[in-house]
């Protein structure tokens, strides 16, 4: 076991996957010689050569469209979109193409492609480096959407994504790259080296897509979260003393319906914590899943804690970001119902 940051574990995943399968290729803006603006692909070009890891033009529709073609050819491209906020020019290639090629050709053609992108806020990135667009992928039939919360999962899930025979959107919460951020922005940064999930095997392993993980067992209330919000929820549970069961969804599509239903049926209460905007966001889908599957077990209305329905602000980041104070308040509120 080695101690890795999430950047190192993501890099290690691509390294392992490229070593194992010569059909894995990596490209994107700044990912070749330089190794990516977040350094996730550092060293890959040197190790595997510029045929398998290279820079791409600043064209997200081109990067994703070319990756679709390569995947159809038989490669397993793993491409990087520099920030999730920049994915929109490539969205047509995801929503209309990658997601439907297996279906519309009845399996004649397939797209085993992974699209990585840093997501979420907490780094003073303003509206163009902070968005959480996962709902836009989860809403598209045919795409899978993965959002890890720690270095161990990031590596295992990324290898599983690259090996998956369907297109996978792999969203990396950028605020977690260097440590498990719990929303207390005024406190010193905790590095992954002091965290048990910063312990990552150096070789090959996978974490299956579509399986949630219980980060904290509890009996009072179920918290559904993913990415950065897992750590915020853990902090909120500790600070309020509410015995929360914290489910880290890890993959939002396919969604682990059984894990969600089992936990909410057990606790009878549910708080949903999602960094993205509220209206029509994935938090709404989670709310619907709980209502459809667990209504008769609920002892209190389900509460959502999310980003506000505004563009992501710059100076007011911490008033926007759903931190432990807001999550803690929701935990207390959901417990008030008797």
């Amino acid at each position: 076991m080695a101690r890795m940051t999430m950047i190192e574990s993501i890099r290690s995943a691509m390294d392992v996957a490229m070593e194992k399968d010569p059909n894995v290729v990596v490209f994107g803006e700044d990912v070749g010689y330089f190794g990516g603006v977040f350094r996730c692909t550092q060293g890959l070009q040197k190790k595997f050569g510029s045929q398998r890891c290279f820079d791409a033009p600043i064209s997200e529709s081109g990067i994703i469209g070319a990756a679709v073609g390569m995947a159809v050819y038989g490669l397993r491209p793993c491409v990087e979109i520099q920030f999730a906020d920049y994915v929109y020019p490539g969205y047509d290639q995801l929503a209309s193409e990658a997601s439907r090629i297996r279906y519309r050709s009845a399996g004649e053609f397939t797209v085993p492609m992974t699209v990585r992108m840093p997501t979420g806020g907490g780094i003073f990135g303003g509206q163009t480096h902070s968005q959480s667009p996962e709902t836009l992928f989860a809403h598209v039939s045919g795409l899978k959407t993965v959002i890890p919360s720690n270095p161990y999962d990031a590596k295992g899930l990324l290898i599983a994504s690259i090996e998956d025979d369907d297109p996978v959107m792999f969203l990396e919460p950028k605020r977690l790259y260097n440590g498990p951020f719990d929303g207390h922005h005024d406190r010193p940064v905790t590095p992954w080296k002091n965290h048990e999930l910063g312990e990552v095997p150096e070789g090959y392993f996978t974490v299956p897509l579509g399986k949630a993980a219980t980060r904290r067992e509890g009996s009072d209330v179920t918290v559904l979260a993913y990415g950065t919000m897992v750590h915020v929820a853990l902090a909120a549970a500790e600070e309020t003393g509410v015995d929360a069961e914290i489910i880290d969804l890890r993959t939002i599509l396919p969604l682990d319906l059984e894990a969600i239903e089992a936990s909410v049926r057990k606790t009878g209460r549910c708080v949903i914590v999602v960094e993205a905007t509220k209206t029509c966001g994935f938090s709404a889908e989670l709310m619907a899943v709980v209502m459809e599957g667990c209504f008769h077990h609920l002892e209190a209305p389900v509460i959502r804690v999310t980003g506000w329905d505004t563009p992501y602000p710059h100076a007011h980041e911490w008033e926007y970001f759903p931190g432990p104070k807001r999550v803690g308040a929701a935990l207390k509120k959901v417990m008030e119902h008797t």
Partner: protein
Amino acid sequence: MSKKKSEPGSLSLYVPEPECRPGDHPDFSEMLIPKAGEARKPPVDVDPMDIHDLAYSVIRVLNKKGEAVGPWAGELDDDALLEGLRHMMTLRAFDARMQMAQRQGKTSFYMQALGEEAVACAFRMAMKPGDMNFPTYRQQGLMIAGGYSIETMMNQIYSNELDPMKGRQLPVMYASQEFGYFTISGNLATQFIQAVGWAMGSAIKGDTKIAAGWIGEGSTAENDFHSALVFASTYKPPVILNVVNNQWAISTFQGIARGNAATFASRGLGFGIPSLRVDGNDYLAVYAVAKWACERARLNLGPTLIEFVTYRAGAHSTSDDPTGYRPKDESSTWPLGDPIERLKAHLILKGEWSEERHTQAKAQIESEILQAQKAAEKHGTLHNGPHAPAGSMFDDVYKEPPIHLIRQRQEAGL
């Protein structure tokens, strides 16, 4: 045509208009049509900078008399030309039957390639097994010239129980790995950059296969066209970028996609991509240029852009009526003629064909198409079924169905 005045304080928007609208006399007098045989033929490893003229010219082989002339002639023997004629006649007869089948309510929709049969049929003959086309919805000639089963195409059009696409796609949206025909998207232009990516894959793997991307002149305005040209110029993969300029994008004339400036072929020049313009209704010219471009790709010399100048003689689709936006007789005055008539005249001139044999062949092809149609209809039509089992609509969303789809399928009782 409104022109901007160069007086201060009188700004106005320039909106290009076609030369003719319904009621007008069709007029192609402004169209540049070089004589057959006039365009030069450079070596395949030519410096793209040295052939800019070919992006503004029109490479033509068959002259008015039906003779094959100039440096691009002589690529095909008589048997190959007779086969080409048969492919085009088959495509036309197939289109006519399927157009009629739609009118008879046997399917929802159809799109003919009427008038532009030479483009896909001739191009296909320059490709090899294993190569991949990323076509638009009007390149069914690639399938027919490639020897794909007519009956299976009809099964797809009818969405019947033998439809390989299991009733999931609109008619004409075929797909076949074996026949090098990538699954058609109804979204325009998306396939153009995918063709480049496929060819990049072939190059990365040190393979020998090449790709051809296809796009209509109207959808060159989409961003995928431009990203395709960027990626093709950057990585120089073995791809041929085909622009089929059939003059009309539904009701929109070609000037809306390009302004009244330059040509579609010349779009490639700024990218350093060799770009040629060819008479799309000249089977021999299409084949010769396709062969030139395929050879470049196979020799690892990189991409080629080709503009096929042709004319969409039919409606855009069965949902379209072109008399609402262009003169009725425009197609009959198209100066590059009809591809079947031109190849037929050439073969007759050579003593390889006759009116009589042509009539016989036409009747025989029509009878074969009719037989195929009858066979296909035994397996169902769109509104009368049978179709693939309804439960199969839940298949192939993913390789393995996730729990939410399993539950929805149960809920649907399928």
